[in-house]
């Protein structure tokens, strides 16, 4: 309750600043907060990555498992993205199955990766029609200080780039042995904007999220292609605003990609 009032005051301050084109934390409107990446965070995962974007903290792990293909795509494996807003991450999250916010997050991260064709699902076939790889990407939000979309998408891509394919013997996974890296041919990432009154800011921090009317996430690849879009919340965007966001997304997502490339080199 009291918390709500504090956030409201903070949101008012965010708006005041933005009317002067300033952000409370001093960033330019299209700046990302500083971020760090920790690849291979979990040894039991086949791939994993912890992302800290400002104070937002997200841990993503990948497990590959053998399963039957979907009946309508017998010659394809697939990915499955899950997201859990753990109760560690915020005083308002509660333990329990994913709510609609977590479901939306997981599905948008899924589309950003899936539609970019960074993973060739046909290469995930082990035995056509009966055995394929399923790539489970599970996102755990450990601290929510805003912009879970970009942090999760970055973590998911990091975890995939870090993924080793388990070794198979007689169609069964041999524990702890690997047959090489998962092939990830592109670097699709989400870039998220908040619309606050008439301003648009990139990578909204938590107080900016409390002030925002609408949210726009754009999935892009390094080839300057769009792989996903998602508008959220009760506000609206104009066509010109969206077009501008697309350009910024192409540009600013490269900073995340560079960070990732650096982390991969060690």
């Amino acid at each position, binding site marked *: 309750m009291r918390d709500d009032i504090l956030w409201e005051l903070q949101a008012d301050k965010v708006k005041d600043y933005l009317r002067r084109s300033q952000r409370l934390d001093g960033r330019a409107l299209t700046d990302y907060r500083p971020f760090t990446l920790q690849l291979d965070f979990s040894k039991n995962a086949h791939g994993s990555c912890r992302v800290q974007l400002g104070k937002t903290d997200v841990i993503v792990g990948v497990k590959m498992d053998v399963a039957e293909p979907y009946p309508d795509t017998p010659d394809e494996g697939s990915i499955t993205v899950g997201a859990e807003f753990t109760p560690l991450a915020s005083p308002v999250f509660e333990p329990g199955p994913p709510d*609609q916010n977590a479901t939306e997050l997981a599905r948008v991260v899924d589309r950003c990766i899936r539609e970019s064709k960074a993973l060739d699902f046909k290469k995930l076939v082990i035995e056509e029609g009966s055995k394929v790889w399923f790539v489970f990407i599970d996102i755990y939000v450990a601290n929510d200080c805003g912009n879970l979309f970009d942090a999760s998408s970055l973590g998911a891509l990091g975890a995939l780039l870090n993924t080793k394919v388990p070794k198979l013997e007689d169609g069964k996974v041999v524990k702890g042995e690997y047959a090489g890296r998962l092939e990830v041919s592109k670097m699709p990432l989400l870039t998220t904007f908040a619309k606050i009154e008439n301003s648009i800011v990139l990578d909204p921090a938590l107080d900016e999220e409390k002030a925002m009317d609408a949210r726009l996430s754009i999935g892009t690849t390094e080839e300057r292609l769009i792989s996903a879009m998602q508008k959220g919340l009760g506000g609206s965007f*104009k066509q010109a605003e969206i077009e501008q966001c*697309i350009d910024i997304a192409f540009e600013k997502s490269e900073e995340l990609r560079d960070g990732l490339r650096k982390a991969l080199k060690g």
Partner: protein
Amino acid sequence: MADEEYRRVDGRKVDELRPIKIIPSVLSRAEGSAYIEWGQNKALAAVFGPREALPQHIQNPTKALVNYVYRMATFSVPDRKSPKPGRREIEISKVSGEALEKAIFVERFPNTTIDIYVHIFDSNAGTRCAALTAASVALADAGIPMRDLVAACAVGRANGKIILDPCKDEEDASDAVDMPLAIMPRTKEVVLLQMDGLISKEDWKKAFEFGLKGCLEVYEIQKRALKHRYEALARTEQKAIKAVDKQLMDAAESLER
């Protein structure tokens, strides 16, 4: 082939909508409702509220909650769907409710919920747009004050062509792009926007403009449906007034006698 001559798998032009039929006021127990047929898609939308939001702790003292529930019948898709709501239905419910929020004068109804339920009974691509279009008409039918209707339409790409209102075959093309879109037509503000597929900015822009055009056509159909309804209501009222007039005249006559 030039866009003007190109004919799609179902014979449509690139910028042609499927046939759309909307009938408001079809469910007597709802406060507002609408039935929509959009190509093969069939949906019913019902609106209840504004009514007290319960449990109390979900109430917002500054505005009405917009609670949108999108569901598909088990038999409405090629493979039987589980009766439990899937993650897709949950996501669509969320973004669709958010799309309507800007159009409704939610600030006039603090502490309440406006419940909007849409069920899909047959489908062939574009159901979320059909649902949202019907829901918007059902809101108007319920007499809920709105800034504007919300008109929705998908746009996409298949076989190298930017196309309006893709059907399922087109959604399954190898180069398919699908972009559900909804706007408030008077201001062209975008209230729903999703996209999957892989597309350049140039193509995206073309698709978006097709989409805007589609939404405006849908808007005309919505307005026509509501107008028919009001005229029918007016006719009924007219008849009722005439009947009362007649009773009064009869009464006057009998008094004179």
